[in-house]
């Protein structure tokens, strides 16, 4: 009886396995294969060599990291203190959360289009800045680094916020009390107790945010200078695939993207395990 039910339970894994194979393992394997072949199917490293020797392509790595890393750091860096203050609930929490979550539901294009008009040279934001005499001429928020960074940040921040809020409000409130009773002030309690316990959450939300930011594409096209300073790596892959119709080269770029993402994740997780041991969320007992 016991054996049968266990077999039955294993059967439940099948949809997940099918899903994983069809939507992840097969496309990934196919991409890897494509990146290592020529158009005629013969094996080659040329696609990778071309990327790393082409200065214009190679610099997309730096450009994209230059957007993804600071934006992700900033998003997580703002989310941590914000979640700390909201950990026991605050008045109007639902409305605050609503406004943080809305950007997720709207999609990149709408946000980018909105930013173009709102933050453009004649947009409301600049009119306000001028009216308040904060600047002599309109501040440029669009078609440059700032535009892309703001857009990517708006997209990523809600994930970091929601995840970390769940994490920090799951930490037993008695730990804070205990720390205080042992002589720690709020600042010491945060750095010695709450922050170490949040590290796993911070690491995961950093990774998720980074991966999203690193594959930035629409924001860079709409709000940046896609042919110049904001030519991100996803754009390079797109151009190889659909402008030059070289899918092998495009696949190689995708593989390089994946490798960089994995590398950053590995670094973050290494930081996490160095800082953090033990279980994070303590219930009773």
């Amino acid at each position: 009886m016991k054996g049968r039910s266990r077999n039955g339970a294993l059967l439940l894994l099948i949809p997940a396995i099918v899903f994983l194979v069809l939507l992840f393992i097969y496309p990934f394997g196919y991409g890897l294969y494509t990146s290592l072949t020529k158009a005629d199917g013969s094996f080659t490293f040329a696609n990778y060599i071309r990327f790393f020797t082409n200065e214009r392509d190679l610099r997309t790595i730096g450009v994209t990291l230059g957007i993804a890393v600071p934006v992700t750091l900033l998003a997580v860096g703002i989310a941590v203190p914000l979640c700390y203050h909201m950990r026991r609930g605050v008045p109007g929490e639902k409305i605050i959360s609503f406004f943080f979550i809305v950007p997720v539901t709207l999609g990149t294009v709408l946000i980018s289009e909105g930013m173009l008009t709102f933050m453009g040279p004649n947009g409301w934001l600049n009119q306000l800045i001028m009216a308040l005499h904060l600047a002599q001429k309109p501040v440029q928020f669009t078609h440059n680094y700032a535009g892309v960074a703001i857009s990517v940040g708006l997209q990523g921040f809600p994930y970091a916020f929601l995840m970390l809020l769940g994490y920090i409000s799951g930490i037993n409130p008695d730990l804070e009390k205990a720390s205080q009773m042992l002589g720690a002030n709020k600042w010491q309690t945060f750095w010695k107790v709450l922050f170490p316990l949040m590290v796993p959450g911070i690491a995961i939300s950093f990774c998720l945010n980074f991966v999203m930011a690193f594959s930035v594409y629409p924001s860079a096209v709409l709000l940046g200078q896609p042919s110049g300073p904001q030519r991100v790596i996803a754009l390079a892959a797109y151009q190889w695939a659909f402008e030059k119709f070289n899918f092998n080269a495009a696949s190689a770029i995708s593989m390089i993207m994946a490798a960089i993402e994995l590398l950053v994740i590995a670094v973050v997780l290494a930081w996490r395990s160095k800082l953090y041991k033990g279980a994070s969320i303590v219930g009773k007992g």
Partner: protein
Amino acid sequence: MRDFKRISVRRMTKRFGDKTAVDDFSIEFGKEEFVTFLGPSGCGKSTALNCITGLIPITSGEIYIDDECIDDAKTSVPPEKREFGMVFQNYALFPHLTVKENVAFGLKLRKLPKTEVEKRVDDALRLVHLEGYATKFPSQMSGGEQQRVAIARCIVLEPRLLLLDEPLSNLDAKLRVELRYELKALHERLKVTTIYVTHDQAEALALSDRIVVLKLGRIQQVGSPQTVFTKPANPFVADFVGYKNAWKGKIEVLKENGGTLGASVRTKGALIETKLSYPEGDPRRDAIIAAYKSGGSVTTAIRPEDIAVIGQGEGAARGEGNVIRCVADLVEYQGHANSISACIKGCEGERVDLHSASDIAFGEAFEACVDPEKVLVFAMPEASPARSAP
């Protein structure tokens, strides 16, 4: 540790919105005293404790250590500066730190030299019998061991006041008793002034120098374990320390005989003769005399173990007084005795609880009697919230 003589809490009140969690709470603790706040859940005992630590701001009142005011509801010394230690029901150990790091947490904050930290941590762990556990993480330990770490983490700082909030409630019955013995031994040895919060009267009786019984945020009685156990101040305290049989009635006859009062109380189920050793000047004595004169109702309180089963017919020989005729409708075997719950014959809804070694079967009619000296009488009706001077 900064030395002191007394900690006094004066008229401390805590309100959450309309709800008063702690009401006009006044008490003094002498140095080295072990005081227990005892009461059912929701009586405000944990809130009172948290108010004393400063973790919950008080609404009004004052807290003094000797002449130093640490809280007067307007300005207060923050919890981390009060030099109090607190042990939590759920241990609240830092899960990312080892046992040693947990115990050293407060010492490191005080920036003590490393060798002294090491030495004091080792001493504290030895005191709670956890040598050899220094490098373990809390998640690798049992509940009892974790609570010992929590205790060590507090006493290593030599707090002026140690506060324990239901520290044994998460442990199983055997461990609870073991750790209770250890707490007692630890207090005998270190003489740390202690406030202990519990809903378990056995813990309160076993550990305390004084017990503070609370109900709905108000102090019901303050006294030694013996006083609270044998001379409860009101029906609530009586019920809480095990006087389970509370019957309402009226005093028919009252005889004053020196230090004792002989009241015959007519309850629904039986005529209860009593011999109350309430001395002259005892407020309970005056209240009973007043109730007799005004014909007001009183409540009797009797422990289950003070009611004895008597043989058939013996009741008739004794006459009416203190004989209860009843039918058992619940019999629980409890090892040393049977716990019997019975309804009193002829009185719908009146019940008697007793412990007896006799084998009474379910549904069996029997007679029971109680010694007049074992009965307590309170002059207030059970329902009204009792308020008595400590």
